[in-house]
């Protein structure tokens, strides 16, 4: 049997189709993945993301430690609650994981890592934290619910404790605030506005039920994947991994080369790689019917890293790794036949709006 979140029984009662995801038994959908997708784009939907690893890092030198551990620079985090997206790299530049780090206080940062990489992440973090006297604590006592969509915040706020509600209502994008044992951040993985709420696991089921009563659609990992891909967001293990560095994974914007004297793990390799031609990650729009899938071959060169059917566009879209010299028109091999596709700028969809021409 796989691992279960605090909301597992709730999902089953709601009739969710449960699948294994990184060792966790998670809801794929509650009936129609496409309806769940549209609910998030048009109104509000919620995801159980308690399988993700919440890790609290504490110690007097925690900022110094993270400036060494992460490719993005937590030195940019000046105001408590501010979040930063970053990769954690091997010395080779390969990506161990992508994560979000929240600045809680001068002696406490919180990182949220992927479920499938949690154990290796923790081992890596602890190994490098020790010399800095930093302690890493996995918060298995917390659940996490992501509420996303244009009406997500409005529908969530009335359910929060008054003190938390006041703070949450004021949050700017990519900021979080905490009250008592709850932490709420204006972050997400869908390209829509919304919250990610970390709360005691014991509160999860009743909170989920209350959110449902607010008219928020339960949504599974299926919709989460189509939403993130439309939003042009990477999925670890598909679009980057230990054999691919951020610069060929559409993540150059997350690597802080400045200030030049900040040494971070992987910097040496990236300093060389940034001056080579190499590959890049691009968006693809299939010009014909069909569905792009990961590992399909791009002609003349390259490979699809994530592909799906986009419910918003009613077309197939993908992320693909291709040589930087690739022209705008390529072909993708699907079941032995070549189909034309266009390289387009991502995101495909954001805040409910289609951003590419179809």
């Amino acid at each position, binding site marked *: 049997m796989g691992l279960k979140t605090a909301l597992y029984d709730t999902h089953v009662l709601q009739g969710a*189709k449960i699948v294994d995801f990184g060792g966790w038994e998670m809801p*794929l*959908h509650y009936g*129609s*993945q*496409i309806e769940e997708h549209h609910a998030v784009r048009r109104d509000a939907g919620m995801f159980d993301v308690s399988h993700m690893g919440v890790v609290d890092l504490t110690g007097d030198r925690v900022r110094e430690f993270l400036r060494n551990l992460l490719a993005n620079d937590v030195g940019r985090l000046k105001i408590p609650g501010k979040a930063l997206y970053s990769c954690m790299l091997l010395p080779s530049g390969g990506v161990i994981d992508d994560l979000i780090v929240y600045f809680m206080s001068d002696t406490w940062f919180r990182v949220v890592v992927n479920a499938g990489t949690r154990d290796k992440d923790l081992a890596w973090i602890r190994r490098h934290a020790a010399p800095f006297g930093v302690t890493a604590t996995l918060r298995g006592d917390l659940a996490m619910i992501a509420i996303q969509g244009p009406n997500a915040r409005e529908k969530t706020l009335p359910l929060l404790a008054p003190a938390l509600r006041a703070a949450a209502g004021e949050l700017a994008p990519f900021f979080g605030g905490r009250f008592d044992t709850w932490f709420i951040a204006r972050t997400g993985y869908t390209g829509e506005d919304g919250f990610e709420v970390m709360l005691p696991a014991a509160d999860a089921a009743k909170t989920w039920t209350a959110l449902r009563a607010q008219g928020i659609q339960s949504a599974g990992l*299926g919709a989460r994947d*189509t939403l993130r891909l439309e939003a042009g967001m990477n999925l670890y293990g598909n679009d980057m991994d230990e054999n691919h560095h951020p610069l060929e994974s559409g993540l150059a914007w997350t690597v802080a080369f400045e200030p030049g004297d900040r040494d971070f793990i992987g910097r040496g390799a990236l300093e060389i790689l940034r001056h080579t031609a190499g590959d890049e990650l691009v968006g693809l729009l299939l010009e014909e*019917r*069909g*569905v792009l*899938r990961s590992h399909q071959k791009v002609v003349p060169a390259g490979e699809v890293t994530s592909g*799906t*059917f986009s*419910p918003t566009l009613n077309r*197939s879209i993908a992320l693909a790794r291709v040589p930087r010299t690739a022209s705008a028109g390529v072909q993708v091999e699907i*079941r032995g036949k070549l189909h034309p596709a266009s390289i387009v700028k991502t995101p495909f969809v954001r805040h409910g709006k289609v951003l590419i021409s179809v």
Partner: protein
Amino acid sequence: MSNIPSDLRYTKSHEWVRAAQDGAVEIGITEHAQSALGDLVFVEVPEVGRAVKAGEASAVVESVKAASDVYSPVSGKVIASNAQLATQPELLNQDPYGAGWMFRVQTNAPIDAAALMSAADYANYLAEEAK
């Protein structure tokens, strides 16, 4: 419990077969199959005139998540295919035994009855599979 019409025959790979008087058969996927696949977004049916063999991958259905082959339960020539599925793949989810039919084959050999299940046998098969 899945809807399993009693007038059809079934395969272990979850296709259904509807026999007509003249030796032609209509083929589609079962209620159970469409439910397991989830929202279907792309369907590729065989071209009319194509010769298919029993057990051969003859059509493709793709859900948001994955592509699956549909196997022809019989040998023969494709005499019709459901063009509506190109623009309305959701018909397979909504009406798998009716508007979601996939293709028709004029058989050129006796149907291997042993390879096809009755509705009752298919229901048992599903129950066994779910264990």
